[in-house]
């Protein structure tokens, strides 16, 4: 299968600096995430709260969630090129206020290196699982050239909910392959959401390709 660029970046990061994360126990990390969950959401339908949603955080540039009010300190580090990977997350989680002086995140940090590794392992696992990007779409299905005009018509079913952002993601301009993979994941039941499963249940492969061709070409 083909993977979206974001996932490839995440995997590359994981491979490069993977020693720590490889030893992390995602299952333990999930329990540790309870401490973060007061402010952060992750997974399907995650939204920004007092902290930004953390989907795809491993491998992502710092302060990169549109519309979230980051501290000046973090934005400055982002301008200098800070990317969240296993290494930088480890350092940040060890001492948030030391690593980003002036961060808005009021969290004292995690002393145990193993706890940090477990948490980072969970952040990576949660991302690949809940973004459904682990879903396998056959190469010949991904290769279908969608009829964008048909997609524009079909999109009428999407825009009633997906026009504005907020707690329902915007899909205009989303990567074409990502749209195909996610819609197939919903249709197969690999990704759960009542409305999305209902709507995708009657989308054929051609229709999914048409929607991806239309939305993928938008700004």
């Amino acid at each position, binding site marked *: 299968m083909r993977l979206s660029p974001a996932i490839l970046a995440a995997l590359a990061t994981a491979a490069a600096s993977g020693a720590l994360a490889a030893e992390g126990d995602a299952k333990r990390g999930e329990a540790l995430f309870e401490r973060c969950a007061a402010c952060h959401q992750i997974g399907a339908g995650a939204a920004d709260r007092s902290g930004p949603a953390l989907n795809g955080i491993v491998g992502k540039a710092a302060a990169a969630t549109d519309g979230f009010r980051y501290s000046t300190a973090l934005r400055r580090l982002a301008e200098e090129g800070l990317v969240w990977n296993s290494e930088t997350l480890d350092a940040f989680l060890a001492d948030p206020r030391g690593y980003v002086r002036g961060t808005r995140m009021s969290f004292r940090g995690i002393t145990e290196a193993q706890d940090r590794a477990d948490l980072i392992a969970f952040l990576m696992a949660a991302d690949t699982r809940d973004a459904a990007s682990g879903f396998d779409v056959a190469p010949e299905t991904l290769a279908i050239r969608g009829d964008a005009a048909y997609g524009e018509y*079909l999109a*009428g*079913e999407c825009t*009633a*909910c997906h*026009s*504005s952002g907020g707690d*329902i993601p915007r899909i205009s301009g989303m990567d074409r392959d990502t749209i195909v993979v996610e819609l197939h994941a919903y249709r197969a039941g690999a990704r759960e959401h009542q409305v999305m499963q*209902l709507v995708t249940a*009657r989308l054929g492969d051609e229709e999914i390709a048409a929607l991806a061709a239309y939305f993928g070409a938008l700004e």
Partner: protein
Amino acid sequence: MKLNRRLFMGTAAATAMLAAPTVWAQGSGRPRVVVVGGGAGGATVARYLAKDSEGAIDVTLIEPTRKYYTCFFSNLALGGFWDMEDLAHSYGALASEFGVNVVHDWAVGVDRATRTVTTAMGHTFPYDRLVLSPGIDFIDGAVPGWDVTAQNKMPHAYKAGSQTELLKAQIQNMPEGGTFAMVAPPNPYRCPPGPYERVSMIAYMLREANPTAKILIADPKQTFSKQGLFEQGWNLAYPGMIERIGPDFGGENVEVNPDGMTISIDGEEQKVDVCNVIPAMQAGKIAHDAGVTDGGWAPVNAEDLSSRMDANVHILGDAAGQGDMPKSGFSANSQAKVAANAIRGALTDARVFPARFSNTCWSLIDRENGVKVGATYEATPEKIAKVDGFISQTDESPDMRAETYRESLGWYASITADMFGVQA
């Protein structure tokens, strides 16, 4: 015809009128679509026709109000979660960004022989296709003792705006331990879960401000939308506050006296402090005047929402007799897109795709306690027919309910952007 520039927001309309003041928009050479009613059906069809035809179709939208309050989510204003202004939208972007001729006037007549619409201000609009999306009107005499002249004493609040504010003020002024009564409507009516979400929101407001107050529902229906979810929610959130009297106990035999503020259920009269009368409904008046209704609603062909009585007239939303879809803003928006595609196909060389419809209705039971029901639909020769559906489960986790509520806020922002062409 007298010129009154303030009437017209669409510059194209104003220019056309100056050039040829006696016959509307004549000489443009473009096919003309007139849309009556600027709600979820009318605003959406006007925007999609104008946007997708890229100027090839002359689209006029006739809507009396400059500021439109959505009926959907108006219960949240009753509960105090939203302000009335959060429900308000205007038509500026439809005119300036999409080129719709927005005319703030009442459509009062349709002549299907000459294909013209006349308005209260005395203007005449010729059309090639007419779209009627007038919403609902109440049936006179449906609740004995009540008619529209009693709406200030016993509000319906089933068209959002001043009625919503009036009902809210009355509930806020209820005496301690007082009684709020609702006369629920018989099927079919606008927004099936609406009366019960309203009860939830009023219970929420009373629990905070007047916790010994009571809510009484007289209901002519055996069952209602999301009944299991509402009843479980009410028992948990507002125990002992809400009593519903169904038809087996006289809930269909109701009379009201707005002057005396009494309600009589199955002959038993009682005094109430606030009474919300939601009468039986029918298609908005202009659909009847146009002669396209039968038994209260306007029957349509499922594949393009065209009238079964006139192929040049389409009816959208609450007013349409279409089959299985609930009368909701979401349904009207969904139908509008199918109709827009079919109308473009008929008037230009645009491609026409098979009809497909969907609907989801979210309701709020208590703070951050949202539920939803949804379905997909297809066109059959007989009607718009349900394909598949889902409903929230009882006993869902608080997290899931909170997520459903936040999702509903996202939907509101999106559907209003989809209707009016403005990002919230």
